[in-house]
């Protein structure tokens, strides 16, 4: 049936409409912790706007309990560390380009512009030959500079990894996972409180990124369960 905007549409009977509306309005209540966290984040944004002394941040205050977005931040940090390390990757250095990591989506209102996967792939290939090899862990900074630092350096396995800016890394991670994700999900281990996801990197290596629910700690393990790298989460 094509739309005919000038005609009154045939609609439900009153009792049917009431039934539908009742069902629509029967929305499950938001988790109280998440509701409070959202409110806190919004008020923190207000404080940022109206407190000149407050340091600006590109991302809103996150709840202590890692949200899904925080999970991605932790996973992004772990994957960036992972691909920068000569671990199970047979000596290959595939360091994402800092240029790639610098592109991202804004957390404020507006259009989102994720980086195209093909472009990321090309950037990774280009960066492979010129990836610098450093031993010192990066100094956490804010915004794109932080992402550039993490993307361009090799990190010690036990280095404290400051979570990169979600804005800059999320699209890269999305594209990487979208292209490479395979294998079964690990699910949630209620006994240990970890959740995980198996990823197949472009190199073909399979790793498992696990996040501890309560603390946001991230660990990356190989398929045999041996720890590859770990870091603290946000």
């Amino acid at each position, binding site marked *: 049936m094509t739309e005919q905007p000038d005609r009154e549409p045939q609609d439900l009977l009153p009792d049917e409409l009431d039934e539908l509306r009742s069902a629509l309005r029967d929305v499950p209540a938001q988790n109280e912790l998440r509701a409070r966290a959202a409110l806190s984040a919004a008020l923190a944004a207000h404080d940022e706007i109206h407190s000149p002394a407050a340091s600006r941040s590109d991302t809103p205050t996150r709840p202590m309990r890692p949200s899904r977005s925080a999970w991605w931040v932790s996973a992004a940090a772990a994957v960036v560390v992972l691909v920068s390390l000569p671990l199970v990757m047979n000596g290959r250095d595939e360091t994402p380009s800092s240029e790639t990591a610098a592109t991202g989506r804004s957390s404020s209102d507006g259009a989102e512009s994720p980086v195209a996967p093909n472009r990321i792939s090309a950037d990774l290939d280009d960066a492979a030959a010129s990836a610098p090899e450093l031993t010192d862990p990066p100094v956490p900074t804010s915004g794109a500079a932080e992402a550039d630092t993490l993307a361009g350096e090799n990190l010690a396995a036990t280095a404290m990894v400051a979570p990169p800016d979600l804005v800059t890394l999320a699209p890269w991670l999305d594209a990487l*996972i979208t292209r490479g994700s395979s294998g079964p999900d690990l699910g949630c281990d209620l006994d240990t409180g970890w959740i995980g996801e198996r990823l197949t990197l472009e190199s073909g290596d399979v790793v498992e990124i696990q996040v501890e629910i309560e603390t946001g700690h991230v660990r990356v393990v190989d398929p045999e369960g041996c720890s590859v790298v770990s870091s603290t989460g946000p």
Partner: protein
Amino acid sequence: MTRRSQGANRTDAELIAAGSQGDRQAVDELLRRHQPMVWAVCRRLCGDDESANDATQNALIRIVRGLPSFEGRSKPSTWIYRIAANAAMDELRARARRPRPTDMVGDPDIETVPLGDDAVEDRMILDPALRELPEEFRLVVVLRDLVDLEYTEIADLLEIPVGTVRSRLSRARRQLYRVLGDASVTRTGNLPGPSPRHTDGVDIGERSS
């Protein structure tokens, strides 16, 4: 309690004006007042708790950041729920670009449906039914039948003619009600009684815009 009483006496417009000038209490009151509906809009548009949580938080932040730019051309509530709807749709599009994370087994946001609870079952059935609707139909039915926006407000928000709003709303309602009706048959085994759904063109049950 005095703080809340003072806040509760102010209109949305007053709270927005005060909040844009840095009145944190006003912002707090404004957000608390509308957060339940913002959540409801996001929950219905996103279809799951996790996405709705992210969308709700983003919506509240956008509201705060947008306070100085509110010009009063629309009702404050319309402006707020427009932001909520946009945040929800942005979250949906972002989610479509990435695979869903692992099953959140044991996550307190995941609903468990008690057997035999028709109201809860309706809610669980409605979520996938809403996701089946095209985005533009889903928006219209949520904004009208959940938020109670007028046709003209929805038309202005979506930048479409009022007639298109009515048309999309009608089709969305019929599709959703058909899902509820099928679920009722499944539960009871009885076919719903005959009810003429079509009239000679009169828009039954609609408020005038």
